[in-house]
């Protein structure tokens, strides 16, 4: 089954009927699904940088000035894709009763001694990009670090220019935080 570009566009916009959506969920992916999806998304953003991989709603890894950075629809850039973009976002940490009460009133509120809810906001447009609910003190979760070079070279068969080692570089940020406090 090959999914047309129009159907993918409707899927992203939430307009695709259930029958087709179900067929996409249950069917195998067609060879060109990734390319078509990226084309659809590229048409929808206002900036010219090439999308290398969509990360989640609003966020993409793009090629920008020879670097691979995480970028929002609105154009805000979060820096190198190997550093957890969440650390460069605005964060609302709901870690006490009052702040949790705002979203989970009454009996639905979790115990702030056990859990905290973090909301990550784009500094450029104010969109809510992600929410994590984690035990108190848990480091900020790095959801996914895609191995772009392997994916492009071995799955798509067209390697990207300038291979970068795929490793978590989040510590480059957090280690600086440590030094600043010292």
């Amino acid at each position: 089954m090959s999914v047309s570009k129009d159907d993918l566009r409707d899927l992203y916009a939430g307009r695709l009927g259930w029958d087709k959506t179900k067929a996409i969920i249950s069917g195998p992916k067609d060879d060109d699904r990734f390319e078509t999806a990226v084309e659809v998304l590229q048409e929808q953003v206002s900036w010219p940088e090439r999308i290398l991989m969509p990360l989640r709603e609003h966020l993409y890894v793009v090629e920008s000035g020879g670097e691979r950075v995480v970028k929002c629809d609105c154009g805000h850039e979060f820096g190198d894709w190997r550093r957890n973009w969440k650390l460069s976002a605005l964060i609302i940490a709901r870690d006490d009763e009052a702040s949790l009460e705002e979203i989970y009133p009454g009996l639905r509120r979790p115990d702030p001694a056990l859990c905290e809810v973090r909301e990550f906001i784009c500094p450029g447009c104010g969109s809510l990009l992600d929410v994590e609910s984690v035990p108190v003190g848990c480091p900020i979760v790095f959801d996914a670090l895609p191995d772009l070079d392997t994916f492009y070279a071995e799955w798509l068969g067209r390697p990207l220019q300038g291979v970068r080692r795929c490793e978590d570089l989040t510590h480059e940020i957090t280690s600086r935080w440590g030094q600043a406090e010292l």
Partner: protein
Amino acid sequence: MAATNGSGGAQIVACDAGGTMTDVIVVDRDGSFAIGKAATTPGDQAAGFCEALDEALGTPGGSPASLAAIEACVYSGTSMLNALLTGTGRRVGVITRRGEEDIFLHQRSRQSWAGYGHADVLHHVAHHRPDPLVPRRLVKGVEGRIDMFGVEAIPLYEHDVRTAVAELLDDGVEAIAVCLMYSYMNPSHEQRVAEIAAEVIAEAGDPPVTLHLSHELAPIIREHGRLNTVVLHAAAAEPSRAQLLRIEAALHGRDYPHPLQVLLSHGGVADIRYQRLHESTFSGPIGGLLGARYLSSVTGVDNWVCADMGGTSFDVGLIMAGEPMIDREVTVTRRIFNLPTLVMDTVGAGMGMFVSVDPLTGRITLGPESAGADPGPVSYGRGNDTPTVMDCALICGLLNPRNYLGGKVVLDVDRALKALREQCADRLRIDAHDLAEGVLELVASSMREHIRTVLSTRGFSAADYDLLAYGGAGPLLMAAYTSGLPFRGVVTVPWAAGFSAFGAAAVDLSHRYQKSTGIIVPDGADDGWKAAMGTMVNAGWDELEARASEDLRAEGLSWDDATVVPIAYVRYGGQLEDLEVASPVRRIDSAADMDALTDAFEDLYRRIYAQVATHRQAGFQIFDLGLTVTIPKVKPHLVRRDVEGPAPPPEAVLGTRDVYHGGRRQPATIYDMDALRPGNRISGIAVVEAPATTMFVPPDHHVRVDEWSMLWLTAGDQT
């Protein structure tokens, strides 16, 4: 499939009208059969039916033969269901209890994955509630409540009913379905709703709106399935009856002297004037089970695994001790209905399934979609370019391109080969013939696993069963999908393609009634308690019996001719599943009678599970009662023929053809199935051809034709 123009003349006509094709089987007095096929004609089903009938009678296009000598004509089809699902049925409004107006939106959670394949059942993201059967606007709630003991807890708010009916009439409904909680324990509220509704309808100038009550149509526990059933009846039963009456009129026009009958999903047969006509909705696939039950009564083989392979699915059902199993709920087209239905487990494995290569894993993928009859496989040349399982069978030489459906369709082997090569084999870098053979083995292995699952999940062993392969495609892969399973025997019949229709011809006239109740017999209950519970059981059976005798009278049948079997669904206290127990006593008038019933349950329980599984300490519960009434009807006469020598007659040998098997081309002997004689034996590698079916006999396999013309397949040295 023998010709019908035998000395006996045609005696029984049975029809299976599917979504695409209508099959008719005509059974002669001397036991021979003929099958006719025609495209289903949904607008006026009489047209397709008559075309298929004429083909079976051997008079297509000629002057229609008289049907004066036919003794029974049984119809089964799916038109009612299609009417409901395509919205071409009547406009139905629903009255339910207040607070439950969103029932079609909530549904039962099971319905969100009902009808899905295994992978989709596991993947929550694919779950989805089917569209509501009735739009929310046409569902009205009324206050009032009967509790689980049948006692009125809140009186019926009659003004609610008046408003609800008036609003539904304003909305132009053609039928009103009423389903209130626990109405099967106490129908007084539903009856009162009906009275008020009749008044309101009369006040509105008597528009032609009909009323349908759940306690009359499906007095079975669980509102959702009960309501679905009532809506099915309200929307589709009467339009469907009109179709059936047209067919009957066409038959009467040709001197057929009896009423037309329909097959019911629990295996009975009824006059088309039968009140609960919706029970015929799901009768299509069960015909084969009834055919197998009939074979049991004739041949003495009483445990069958029935395996029906068609274009889109592979259905497996069991006959145990000569009887099929019954479920009180059935899931069809992703909806749950409270309708007693013979159990068949279905898996997507049909000849029409698409064959493709998964781009991610590089593995062969089968289905889940199928090509259907139109456009059909690539080899039909009617516009489908995606190869199917059937194309693979053709490429391997198992099917004869010039003798498919009796030569009605000429198959294009090159076209099928090209499609399989370009879309699959080249991508996998293997030979297309090897791939085609591999695909057949893949299909066979999923069928084999399905059979194994059907048996093992119930704790049964293949060693206690004979396998009966039918459906047009059944005999083709029967050797492959039974390989390694220790069946007592593996068999097919020359009329495999029309076996479901044959089954419909082989049933007695019978009705089945059901009603929920709430009877509890704790361990150590005293005689007084048992007798009191017995009174409740009797009340249930009396009610069902009254309904049954009324139905028989309406059909012009005599109660004196009927065999009546009372049924109780018994479970141990606290269990979720129960067993259907045919009561050894006609009524429960004493503690001893109750003990006889629970003893019969324990005896059955012991046979199905094990002695150690019994635990009467938990007491017994009965939540459903049932009743069957049966009146004997004329059935096909299966003829026992004299056994002849093992060598097939010369006219049965059609020549040889290369088939691709075991990774190479091998010459196979081609036989004409209709020309084989009882006693004949043939050995693989061979292909046995009949107009509507083909049997493949691999190397080291043998076929023996028995005195009933059934073809027994054995492997290796067993003969």
